[in-house]
């Protein structure tokens, strides 16, 4: 609306999505030493009546699909709920049975809130796949078993949490002081000071800071063994010691600008390592919850 270069385009809301809320009590389901590897939401898709399928196939021969989107619902202190898209997939009216969604990011968001007494709330929304004259009505006939006891416990939505014990598979925090790096076996953070004034290449142009404290991640991690896992590990079995949390490093530098010399502020992102951790190669990094 306020961009001069772009003409205003009027639109209408066109939504006839159906949605249901799922509430999962998380009490004692995730131990403080449990590293979340994967969270799976399993929904049971109820069969669609045959006569509906026939009618739909006649009316919309090329599209019998709808979109199912999973949202994480954040209950905020100001009373305004905020939703975050977690996973989405196409579903056909011809299908029936269990469908899985990856809700790891939702559980990670829930963990970041640090409110373990609050349940995990997910919203399942079934909506039209496309909008337009050829759009099918398939979304109206796709439904999942709810948490309502009337739907039966057998097909109730399930939340599967796969975790690893960080006591065994995680990093150990700070390294033992004064231990030679060659003797460190388990992943840990080793404090170090980078003295920028001592670096020959940085001479006369990195003006501030003179140096900074950081950590390096050293050592190795306990490797996964298939026989010790009671679920299918979705990532590589190889676990590595890496920088799990880091901070930015601002610098004042002097650079030549034509014939003169000017000073500039540069931010080096993720330069100061704060925490080390163990993770499987290929494991996605969870997004941070915005304030």
């Amino acid at each position, binding site marked *: 609306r306020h961009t001069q270069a772009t003409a205003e385009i009027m639109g209408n809301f066109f939504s006839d999505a159906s949605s249901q809320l799922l509430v999962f009590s998380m009490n004692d389901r995730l131990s403080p030493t449990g590293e979340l590897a994967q969270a799976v939401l399993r929904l049971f898709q109820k069969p669609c009546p045959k006569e509906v399928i026939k009618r739909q196939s006649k009316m919309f021969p090329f599209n019998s699909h709808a979109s199912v989107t999973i949202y994480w619902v954040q209950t905020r202190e100001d009373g305004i709920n905020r939703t975050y898209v977690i996973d989405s997939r196409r579903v056909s009216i011809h299908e029936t049975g269990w469908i899985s969604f990856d809700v790891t990011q939702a559980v990670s968001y829930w963990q970041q809130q640090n409110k373990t007494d609050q349940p995990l709330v997910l919203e399942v929304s079934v909506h039209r796949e496309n909008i337009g004259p050829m759009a099918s009505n398939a979304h109206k006939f796709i439904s999942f078993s709810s948490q309502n006891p009337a739907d039966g416990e057998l097909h109730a939505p399930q939340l599967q949490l796969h975790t690893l014990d960080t006591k065994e598979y995680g990093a150990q925090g700070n390294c033992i002081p004064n231990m030679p790096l060659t003797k460190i076996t388990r992943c840990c953070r080793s404090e*170090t000071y*980078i003295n*920028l004034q001592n*670096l020959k*290449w*940085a*001479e*006369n*142009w*990195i*003006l*501030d*800071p003179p140096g900074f404290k*950081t950590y*390096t991640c050293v050592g190795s991690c306990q490797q996964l063994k298939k026989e010790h896992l009671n679920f299918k590990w979705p990532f590589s079995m190889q676990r590595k010691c890496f920088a799990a*949390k880091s*901070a*930015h*490093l*601002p*610098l*004042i*530098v*002097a*650079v*030549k600008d034509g014939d003169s*010399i000017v*000073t*500039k*502020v*540069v*931010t*080096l*992102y993720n*330069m*100061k390592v*704060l*925490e080390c951790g163990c993770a499987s190669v290929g494991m996605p990094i969870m997004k941070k919850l915005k304030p």
Partner: protein
Amino acid sequence: QIEEKIQESLMKQLNLNDIPVLEKTDVEKLVIPDHVRTKYISLLKRSSEETFSRGK
């Protein structure tokens, strides 16, 4: 390794192909302007807040 990372990141951010070579006499009388210093301090504060909150 950290040294290399700093060097690489700096060159990228400043769009430089080579490490700048400045003489001591070039920078001796250089005064850091207030706006540069203010920006640096605010970024430094933000970085240490991050360090503190993440450290928790």
